[in-house]
């Protein structure tokens, strides 16, 4: 029964959702609204589950006897978790915790935002280093990618137009970059998207019909 009931639920909900797409009236429309509410509730629990799992893993790491840096990282995560949780839940005016000026908002604006932006900004450095190492004209395909990257990187920055300002309109780097992005790139993307859509449709049908049960664990 542990397999049959979830499979039956997936079948029933999946079929109703498909029917509702073509017949958005009662009872299908109402049923899908109910399913959407349930999905929202399950998703909210999933967020809690994720947060608690992160806390568990971090606490285990910080209490571990292994003398590694991970202990300190785990401790920082756990301490930050409790700090933001306590301040958000009990010291920021209840429901008003997101209102500008609350203590939670202060932490968000002055600690979380700059730290997150800094972490992401580091990507620029790694991308630069990786580009230098990876963009080598080792083959015909790699050369094509390299040439496209050259035009797009220069064309997507104002310097591209400054370097080619003397060229007639339509041949400047920004216009060449736009052409690459609008035609070859979009054509490739559409092909990928159609492929993905077909794959998703077939995977969804397998789930609805109970042929794919790996989400239940095992098999």
């Amino acid at each position, binding site marked *: 029964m542990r397999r049959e009931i979830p499979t039956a639920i997936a079948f029933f909900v999946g079929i109703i959702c498909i029917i509702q797409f073509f017949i958005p009236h009662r009872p299908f*429309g109402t049923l*899908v*609204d109910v*399913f*959407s*509410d349930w*999905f*929202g509730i399950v*998703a*909210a629990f*999933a*967020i809690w589950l994720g947060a608690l799992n992160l806390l568990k893993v971090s606490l285990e790491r910080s209490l571990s006897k292994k003398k590694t840096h991970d202990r300190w990282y785990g401790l920082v995560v756990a301490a930050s978790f409790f700090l933001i949780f306590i301040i958000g839940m009990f010291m920021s005016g209840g*429901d*008003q915790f*997101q*209102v*500008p000026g609350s203590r939670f*908002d202060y932490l*968000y*604006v002055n600690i979380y*935002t*700059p730290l*997150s*932006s800094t*972490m*992401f*900004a580091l990507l*620029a*450095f790694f*991308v*630069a*280093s990786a*580009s*230098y190492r990876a*963009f*080598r*004209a*080792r083959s015909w395909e790699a050369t094509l990618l*390299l040439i496209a*990257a*050259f035009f797009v*990187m*220069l064309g*997507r*920055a*104002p*310097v591209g*137009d*400054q370097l080619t300002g003397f060229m007639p309109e339509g041949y*400047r780097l*920004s*216009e060449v970059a*736009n052409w690459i*992005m*609008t035609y070859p*790139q*979009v054509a490739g*993307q*559409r092909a990928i*998207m159609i492929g993905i859509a077909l794959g998703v449709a077939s995977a969804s049908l397998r789930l609805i019909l109970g042929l794919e049960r790996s989400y239940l664990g095992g098999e």
Partner: protein
Amino acid sequence: MAENPTEMKPGLFDRLMRIDRRVIFIFISVALIVPLFFNISQRIQVSPEVQMLNDAMNKVPDGGLVLFAMDYDPPSAPELQPMAVAAFKVALAKKFKMVIIGLWPQGPMQANMAFETATHDPRFKDVKLTYGVDYVNLGFQSGNEAVIQKMGSDIPTTFPRDYAGTPVDQLPLMKGIKNLGNFDFMVNISAGYPGTREWVQFGADRFGLKMVSGSTAVQTTEMSPYVGKQLLGLMGGMRGAAEFEQVSGYPGRAIKFMVGQSVAHVIVIVFIVIGNIAYFATRKRKGA
């Protein structure tokens, strides 16, 4: 220890093949930091997608009802926050009624920050806005595309309270708003999933929502196939933000940051060229 006489001393090209990454980091740091101290302006060519976006926003009648879905968080804010600020400035200039939501938990707070920055523009110092009448922030709702789906039929039950806990039936602006069909327009600022793709698939396609999008540079390539029909315009990355700031007439941080981006791109290209010259030189030697 004596040197092995058979070992060749690495030549110039060998060394250029293996430039220490810290050297690249230093160059990029200088490229990004130094331009911040200078007031250099660069001419920015507006792309057709951003021009379309600006035209689409300007076609919305003054006082129109516009949905702002802020689906991003602080890591993407350097790229996306200038878009949000410029979009809010256009909305203030056109006296749009604004409903703000987020499918990302941090989105509504990012929206608050962007909205505050926009209202501090001296050009809007005489604009008097009342929360609940001129704009509302309905906050975050979990459920990704299911939230969009639900908004298509019933917004008050999807967002029963705003981000400060006020029931939506107490907000005058929300009276008469039943579903996505009530909005004249939508601006989505997106950093990934859930974001523009889900809004296109479940909002624009399904409920005929007229929408534009601002997305991170890495995501732009995935969104560009939608431009034209499902998306009435697209801003991609910081360049897109700078273009929108320019074309909308509200220059901001993105235009300023473009100088650093220009220099950084040139440096990356120079390193790529050096790497390739060294690659071919060493390959030729090894081949010989």
